[in-house]
């Protein structure tokens, strides 16, 4: 219920629409699993399900704060570079003999600071987040290269690499997946059960009204960017651990996938609607699809084509659903709910 209220689609109609969207995703996952099983005899092996998620973990983790940011009507393109900066900084510190117990907190702090930079420029400076984070996308990557240069730092202690590569003892569940679930649970509760989440939706739906209602818009937005930076740094650490190597180019190109996954999760690019469960399902759907296609030795080209089409469809389908619905409403004589994406689709850029 609260998920539905907080889910902030407009009311029952949208609640049902949302339900439809998430059931749609579940259906898609089921379909993909069947497909995978048909495509490859190895798909349904237990080991494979461990692999299936592993490849996408960093993306999945970064997608969670991205969900909150987009719901609040902003976007953060800089996450992949922050992950890279985290990786290369960690490597740099480790190579310089700093114990990981110190290095990791430092890296996380840097992540938070980077997020703060984004947050201040966007929330306080009132600059468009698309451009700001485009700038920091380049800035953070540049810093990563400056810090570590061409080197790749590897000799990390096994205990550390276990974090990214190992499994929960006695199971095939990779640790990063556990981290993902934990984070998803926390942010899910924050977004759907607490008044902070309520305020995030309010900002995303009607910043003016939120501000006039005493919501500390600047503070919330800034906070979200800090969170995003922090989690991106965490993802960078996990990536470093999983590949047992720190490099300046770590995570390059991940932002596209992150945003894609979030939008596939049914989050409205213009803010105001979307749920963590939806995004989590989208993560799984994408992971399954990629894995199935790989096992069927379908080349990566086809995968990127498929992903692109999926992304577009994820907007087209609800749009048409909405138009159909508001048509019905008009007949019924009720006031059609504000047609977010439909309206913006023509006018706004993002």
């Amino acid at each position, binding site marked *: 219920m609260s998920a539905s209220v907080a889910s902030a689609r407009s009311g029952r109609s949208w609640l049902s629409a949302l339900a439809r969207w998430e059931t749609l995703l579940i259906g898609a996952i089921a379909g993909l699993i069947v497909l995978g099983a048909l495509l490859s005899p190895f798909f349904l092996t237990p080991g494979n399900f461990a692999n299936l998620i592993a490849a996408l973990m960093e993306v999945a983790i970064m997608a969670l704060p991205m969900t909150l940011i987009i719901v609040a009507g902003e976007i953060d393109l800089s996450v992949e570079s922050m992950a890279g900066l985290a990786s290369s900084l960690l490597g740099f510190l480790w190579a310089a003999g700093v114990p990981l117990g110190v290095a990791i907190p430092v890296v996380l702090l840097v992540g938070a600071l980077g997020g703060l930079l984004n947050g201040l*420029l966007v929330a306080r*400076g*009132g*600059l*468009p987040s*698309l*451009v*700001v984070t*485009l*700038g*920091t*996308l*380049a*800035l*953070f*990557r*540049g*810093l990563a*290269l*400056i810090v570590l*240069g061409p080197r790749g730092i590897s000799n990390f202690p096994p205990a550390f690499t276990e974090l990214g590569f190992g499994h929960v003892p006695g199971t095939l569940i990779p640790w990063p997946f556990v981290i993902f679930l934990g984070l998803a649970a926390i942010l899910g509760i924050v977004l759907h059960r607490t008044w902070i989440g309520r305020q995030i939706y309010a900002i995303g739906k009607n910043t003016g009204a939120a501000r006039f209602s005493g919501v500390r818009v600047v503070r919330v937005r800034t906070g979200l960017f800090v969170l995003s930076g922090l989690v991106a740094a965490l993802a960078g650490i996990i990536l470093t651990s999983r590949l047992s190597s720190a490099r*300046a180019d770590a995570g390059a190109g991940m932002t*596209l996938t992150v*945003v*894609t996954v979030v*939008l596939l999760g049914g989050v409205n*690019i*213009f803010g105001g609607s979307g749920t963590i469960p939806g995004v989590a399902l989208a993560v799984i759907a994408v992971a399954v699809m990629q894995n199935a296609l790989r096992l069927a030795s379908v*080349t*990566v*080209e*086809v*995968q*990127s*084509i498929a*992903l*692109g*089409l*999926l*992304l*577009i469809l*994820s*907007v*087209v389908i609800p*749009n048409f659903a909405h138009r159909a619905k508001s048509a019905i409403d008009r007949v019924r004589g009720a006031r059609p709910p504000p047609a977010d*994406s*439909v309206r*913006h*689709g*023509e*006018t*706004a*850029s*993002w």
Partner: protein
Amino acid sequence: MADSGVVVGPMPARTRGQWLAVVARQRELSLLAIMLVLGGLVTLTAPQFLTVSNLSQVAVLAALIATAAVGEALVVITRNVDLSVEATMGLVAYCVASLLERHALDTPGAIAFGLGLGLVLGMINGVVVTVFRVPAIVATLGTLSVFRGVDYLIAGSHQVPLAGLPPGFTDAARDSVLGIPIFVLIAMIIVVIGSAILRWTRFGRQLYAVGSNPEAAAILGIPSRLVVFTAFTLCGLLAGVAGILYIMEFGTINGTSATGLVLAVVAAVVVGGVNIFGGSGTLAGAALGALFLGFIANALILVGLSQFWLQAIYGLVILIAVSADAIILRRIQRATAARRVR
């Protein structure tokens, strides 16, 4: 509003607002000024900066980006964005190159084909945005990976080497007329024609109108969707041109050609002073933005800064540019706060 007096004259606040607005609209000049100053400083430490060969090299590379940036600007002015330009460039580049290599078409034919392909890809974006009502950022994010995927699919691991291209095909990248590199001429022509269209044709003004106030545009009966569609189509066409220039510039073409260029293109547009929320900005600005970034890159390498610094500086330039816009705009509004527009 001053009631005294027979006629209502412009308020001082308004004139000051205008003055600032004028400054704000002089992005082109400020960019040129900065480049002159920096150029001087760089020349002190690296004399070879101020050589014809170097400057023309910078200009040629910038012209390539500028061509794409002009297209991007058209779309951004309408309050949209096209993230798929780089994919369009790459796809056109590979298709044209491979057609030439296989002698499937003669040079003019292949070029015409490339332009046509760019046009069609642009139309696809246009349809997805205006017919299927997909927000531009999402739509072009999608087509980015679709187009790129098709590019990989077609190219596979094949690479069209310089040798595969008809002799003299790539000369355009080096030759110059009256001392001006052909690439620069092409970019200039595009900017001039484009600017003329924006300034003097109905379509051009509608472009700004749609970006400036979509609701008002609708009430005026301006065909917003058609305008946006056309903008995307032209953007695709120009990306196609850029793709062909890309072949001439780099000679060797494979599936990865032009990856990562979208950052440079959008950066050029932003640095060029085109408002990311649409309605304002000039094509000359976008082109100069491209030149500015290329200029910075070249200068950095020449003063001996490792290429690792490049990205960081790029980022800073973008942040500075967008902050400057905001500050000036705020000044204007503050100056005219006497009558807040609600």
